[in-house]
């Protein structure tokens, strides 16, 4: 089995290629939504865990070791749903930033950079919800522990662990909203 970081770095690289294909004009809208999702999910994490644990016990009879798997899956599905909605552009109706992106090579490089940022945010969040709940997917043989030294270094830089408070993620959100509103 490959190291954990190989899986999530691959996901990030795939998002980078998606960014190049869609161009950064459209990717910036997704960046905005993903940042807001990370902010809200991190801010309300403790309460969400409380309610999900209760709901899992009462509705699905989740208990013991299965609780971590249930919580990890719940957060992952919720986050992936938000990301999917932002990419499909229907549920939230979030417009793209519009405007004409620069042509190659500057435009391609910018699209790659924004795609990588989105990849870091998405893959990093998926990794966080594994790490937060003790890597429940390892029971399926999908992940091999312990983490490599590189993996341990990257875990400290995941979006949810980067800052003491998730409010810092609102800084780029505010900047993007200013650009979006100014038109």
């Amino acid at each position: 089995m490959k190291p954990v970081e190989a899986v999530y770095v691959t996901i990030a690289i795939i998002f980078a290629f998606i960014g190049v294909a869609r161009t950064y004009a459209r990717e910036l809208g997704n960046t905005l939504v993903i940042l807001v999702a990370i902010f809200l999910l991190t801010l309300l994490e403790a309460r969400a865990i409380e309610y999900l644990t209760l709901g899992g016990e009462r509705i699905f009879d989740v208990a013991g070791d299965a609780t971590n798997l249930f919580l990890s899956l719940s957060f992952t599905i919720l986050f992936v749903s938000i990301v999917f909605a932002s990419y499909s552009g229907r549920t939230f109706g979030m417009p793209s930033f519009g405007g004409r992106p620069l042509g190659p090579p500057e435009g391609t490089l910018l699209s790659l950079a924004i795609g990588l940022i989105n990849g870091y945010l998405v893959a990093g969040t998926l990794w966080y919800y594994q790490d937060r709940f003790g890597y429940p997917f390892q029971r399926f043989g999908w992940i091999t522990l312990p983490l490599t030294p590189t993996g341990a270094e990257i875990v400290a830089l995941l979006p949810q662990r980067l800052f003491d408070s998730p409010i810092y993620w609102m800084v780029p959100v505010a900047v993007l909203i200013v650009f979006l509103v100014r038109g």
Partner: protein
Amino acid sequence: MNQSIEVLVTFLLYLAFFGWIGWLRGRRRTGFVLAVALSSWLLLQEQGDIFVRIANLGKKFLVFIQSGGLSADPDPAFTALRDAPPLVTTENRPGFVFLVWVLILVLTYIISNQNYKWLTTNNKSDGWAVLWGILSGFFFASVLLPRLVAILLPAGTPGIDTTEVIQSANLFRILGGSLAVVREGFSNLWTLIEPQAPLAILLFLTLLLVIAASTLQGAKKAK
């Protein structure tokens, strides 16, 4: 550690300078110079003997003329021709080939500065111009940098063979060395800023988003 950051900054400054020159001259002019410089260098490395033979023939012709080859009695001229040493020998061949390349490069720059239609049409100052400029910087570094070593370390410096330095340098070695400089420089830079890593990452991400969004703003206003 500080020295590697110094080398990294110098290297990036060097590339930025060539990128800026490319931007100023436009992509057609910059691309033309790069294409001619690169192809002529490769051609001279592979088929430089052709120019060596031309130069030696030229010298023999001059010796022939100066020795009265076109006079009524050309015999002394033939003797002089037979005894004349070649202009370009095995020892000075690399230097001669280099001088031929420099001559081609100078002529190329002169031609590229003219306002010919094929040079001025679609000669935009854009990312391609910067890219050709940066690639030119890489290529010129591989050719000129080893020779500049002689300024700092002249022939006779203990432990340094200037000739070997010049002959062992090539584009791939420069590329490999450049990657090592960048890797080590950024690694040491990261060590310096690691205590403030979250803030640095936040600033970097925000700056990137601002740059991307602001280019779109320009396009919107144009509409």
